[in-house]
């Protein structure tokens, strides 16, 4: 069966005062119906821009090549009308900071029903009934009253639940969650993650979960993509990625991560910083920071090559990597 979302060789270039800046290079990824896929990497690696591309929300002047098919439809050739039909009803999005992503001056009810009425052609009553069901589904207490309330009357975690309800309102099949727990307290995070997993199990929703937190990646997703400097450097089932990484960058990320249950271990920060867009070295973008780099690494960006049945890595050296336990 064809995947619900099939991104192939996607490249995005943004305009800048100093000329066009390439941000995404040759990104390919898939999300199946009902699958929870993780996209991980440091800030600025192109995760969020990928999400924006998939919703047609790139800034004016952005140049996009490659292909992104959702349920058989080529997204990149959609006109404004076409995008309106896909957004919300096909692909929906949850933003990082619910306080910023909810309109402060419109009631929850208004924000929850306005696109339902456009996409699902519901009248006010039907939309209201569905809104109550949705709030109930995301475990907002007293949904009838919540509909009349404004976002600032909820706590951060509750706001994100409201934002998730809004994203689900027009029955999308794919939810892109862009770091939805980053702005929340740790105790609240777990609740949101559990909610997303439950929604996937109950409704068959596919979720693309963007995060910089490998712990969240392993807790929630079944398959993951590791992004570095606008490229996918490694992909595979999350369990394998995090226990036996094939790419030095994945291993370095794991080494730089604090271990929650362990004391006395050393944190190993990755030396250097990711290259700024447009300033990546000619070869492998990670090569200047990589302990295993060889002269051939500087020649050309290594393509993502299959390793075994379900994994791929973009590394020509393929060193034997030890992961700190």
């Amino acid at each position: 069966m064809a995947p619900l979302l099939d991104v192939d060789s996607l490249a995005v270039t943004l305009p800048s005062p100093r000329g066009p800046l390439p941000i995404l290079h040759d990104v390919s990824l898939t999300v199946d119906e009902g699958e929870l896929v993780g996209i991980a990497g440091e800030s600025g690696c192109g995760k969020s821009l990928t999400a924006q591309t998939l919703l047609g929300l790139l800034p004016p002047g952005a140049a996009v090549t490659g292909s992104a098919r959702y349920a058989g439809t080529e997204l990149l050739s959609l006109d404004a009308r076409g995008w309106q039909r896909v957004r919300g009803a096909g692909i929906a999005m949850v933003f990082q900071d619910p306080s910023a992503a909810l309109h402060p001056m419109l009631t929850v009810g208004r924000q929850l029903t306005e696109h339902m009425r456009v996409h699902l052609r519901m009248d006010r009553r039907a939309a209201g009934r569905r809104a109550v069901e949705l709030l109930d589904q995301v475990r907002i207490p007293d949904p009838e009253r919540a509909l009349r309330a404004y976002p600032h009357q909820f706590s951060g975690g509750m706001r994100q639940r409201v934002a998730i309800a809004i994203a689900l309102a027009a029955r999308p099949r794919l939810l892109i969650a862009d770091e939805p727990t980053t702005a929340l307290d740790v105790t609240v995070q777990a609740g949101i993650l559990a909610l997303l997993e439950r929604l996937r199990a109950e409704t068959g929703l596919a979720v693309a979960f963007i995060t910089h937190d490998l712990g969240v990646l392993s807790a929630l997703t079944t398959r993951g993509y590791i992004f570095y400097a606008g490229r996918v450097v490694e992909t595979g089932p999350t369990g394998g990625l995090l226990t036996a990484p094939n790419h030095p960058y994945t291993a370095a990320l794991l080494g730089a991560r604090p271990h929650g249950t362990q004391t006395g271990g050393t944190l190993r920060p990755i030396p250097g910083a990711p290259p700024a867009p447009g300033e990546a070295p000619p070869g492998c973008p990670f090569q200047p920071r990589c302990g295993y780099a060889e002269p051939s690494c500087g020649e050309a960006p290594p393509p993502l090559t299959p390793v075994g049945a379900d994994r791929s890595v973009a590394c020509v050296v393929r060193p034997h990597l030890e992961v700190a336990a």
Partner: protein
Amino acid sequence: MTTVHDGEPGAVATTASRPRGAHPLLTFLAKRVAVTAGLLLGVTVVTFGLVNVVPGDPVTANLSDQALNDPAAVAAFREKWGLDQPLWAQYLHYLGNLLHGDLGHSQQTGRAVLDDLLHYVPATLELALPSMVLALLIGTGVGMLAAVRNGRFTDQLVRVGALLGLSTPPFWLSLVVLYVFFYQLGLAPSGGRLSTDFSPPPTVTGMYTVDGALAGQWDVAWDAAQHLSLPVLVLTSLTVAMLVRFVRSAMLEVLQQDYIRAAYAKGLPTRVVLRRHLLRAGLVPVVTVSGLAFASLLSGTVLVESIFGWPGVGQYAYRSATALDLPAILGVSLFVALVYTLVNLTVDLLYGLIDPRIRLS
């Protein structure tokens, strides 16, 4: 106010009930009335003091040369207007009258200042109201358009237009408008509130267009509207130029917000995003500036009123000031202070209406 606490799924929302007592809006209004009273008192003190320290004598400003040479006439004038009393006595006397609603008599017109104001204020109001409404509609629309088309040709055009409008002296624009629409095209009368063929309609609001319509004298109302057209055109253009820049930058800021991207991400049509999401959020700063603009229109626009021979507050203030007509100056000052406080109060109430975060806290 309702607060929904996070925590265990299914946690019950708690309601913090408002403490018993007066409605918060009433408390708010009562405070504002008290502040306004204090402010007006301050205005009388300052104006009284200022008028008395400026070099110049109301006697020389008001009496003819012949009368000035007659000590008896001068003394009579001083006695009539209480100028022979010490300053504090003059002030207390004025304040006592003020508390009875008596603003004194203008030395210039010889009429009660209150009657003068009731005559001039409606004339200014008749100019200010349509100018403000038009400016608000045009300014908001054009400013939003420029923000949405940020950096593109439409935006550049709007910005250059606004800059031109802002740097145009009002009197120059008035003269150009007169030259084109009155002298060249003959489309509109040159000045005044009404053609000489008509007499003012029975006074209800003091605004000739409204009063004419109320009395069923449609020809009078139409003639008054024609007289309004040119000064309103000038005042609207100037106000639009000022508003557009504020609206544009306010809307640009809102356009950067996540909730606008979220609105697009929901698949809402652009016009809905702009009308419902963008406009609503950009309105708060727009209301602030519009309030100031309206207050300044209401306080009278001396140059425009003078050129169009419009008997409004601005002209009255100008003539009173040059004649050192203390009661009239005080009256105008009180009126202007009152306008600014009322406009500010309205602006604050509008904030609450627009933004629930202000209303509910």
